[in-house]
């Protein structure tokens, strides 16, 4: 198999499948990668939703998850070097965003509207400046794909802006807290696009700024 570092279970499972189907090393590496992506996302999602449910903000956490998933797949952003540190931090961040959204939903309308405008402007500006943000482990090699991802990220932002604006004028009783969840999620993903976002993840990784990572922005 290519000299790529995957978790033990991904490598073992991929090796077993490759042996069964007589795949070459390249295909085995692809399987190991897919197993790792799938397993980490399922485990992280389950942990986040469980914590959100325990904290009584399940649906707000779901709203944050959907918003951030829509963004990150196209816009990219800062990453941790360790799946376990990533799981720990994201497990806390999503329910915290949901709690903040619920709390902010009770703020006076002027504050909520101001924060909404700030979030949308920040989101659009940072997407235009930075997106898509790749990483050394997953470089975007095609300029065409880079352009397509930027357009997709901006399209997602337009759709979100429409939803957020719609929630501002609807009479649904949960609209305010869901809107604030979306607003905080946009701010979080936007932050992750910036050099400060990369520095934050370097900090989480143990104060070690590695030259191959985009920490200096």
């Amino acid at each position, binding site marked *: 198999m*290519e000299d*790529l*570092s*995957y978790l033990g279970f*991904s490598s073992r499972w991929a090796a077993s*499948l490759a042996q*069964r*189907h007589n795949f070459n090393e*390249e295909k085995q*590496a*692809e*399987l190991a*990668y*897919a*197993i*790792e*992506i*799938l397993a*980490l*996302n399922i485990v*992280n*999602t389950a942990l986040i939703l469980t914590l959100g449910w325990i904290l009584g903000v399940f649906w707000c956490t779901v709203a944050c*998850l959907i918003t*951030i*998933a829509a963004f*990150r*797949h196209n816009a*990219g*952003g*800062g*990453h*941790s*070097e*360790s*799946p376990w*540190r*990533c*799981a720990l*931090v*994201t497990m806390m961040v999503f329910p915290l965003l949901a709690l903040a959204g619920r709390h902010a939903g009770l703020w006076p309308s002027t504050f909520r509207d101001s924060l909404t405008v700030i979030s949308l402007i920040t989101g659009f500006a940072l997407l235009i400046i930075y997106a*898509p943000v*790749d*990483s050394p*482990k*997953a*470089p*975007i*090699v*095609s300029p065409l*794909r880079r352009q397509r991802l930027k357009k997709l990220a901006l399209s997602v932002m337009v759709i979100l802006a429409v939803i957020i604006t719609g929630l501002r004028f609807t009479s649904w009783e949960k609209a305010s807290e869901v809107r604030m969840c979306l607003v905080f999620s946009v701010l979080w993903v936007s932050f*992750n696009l910036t050099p400060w976002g990369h520095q934050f*993840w370097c900090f989480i990784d143990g104060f070690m700024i590695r030259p191959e990572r985009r920490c200096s922005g």
Partner: protein
Amino acid sequence: MKKVAFRFSGLLVAILTVVGNMSPMCVLFHYQPEVPASLRK
């Protein structure tokens, strides 16, 4: 369990191939496994 996994391994490989091709970037969280050279685009 092993028997079932063995029987459906073809389907599993197909699903994993789609996932690998669909997601050459981190989907949701903040850890990026290294993308094999053949999936980089």
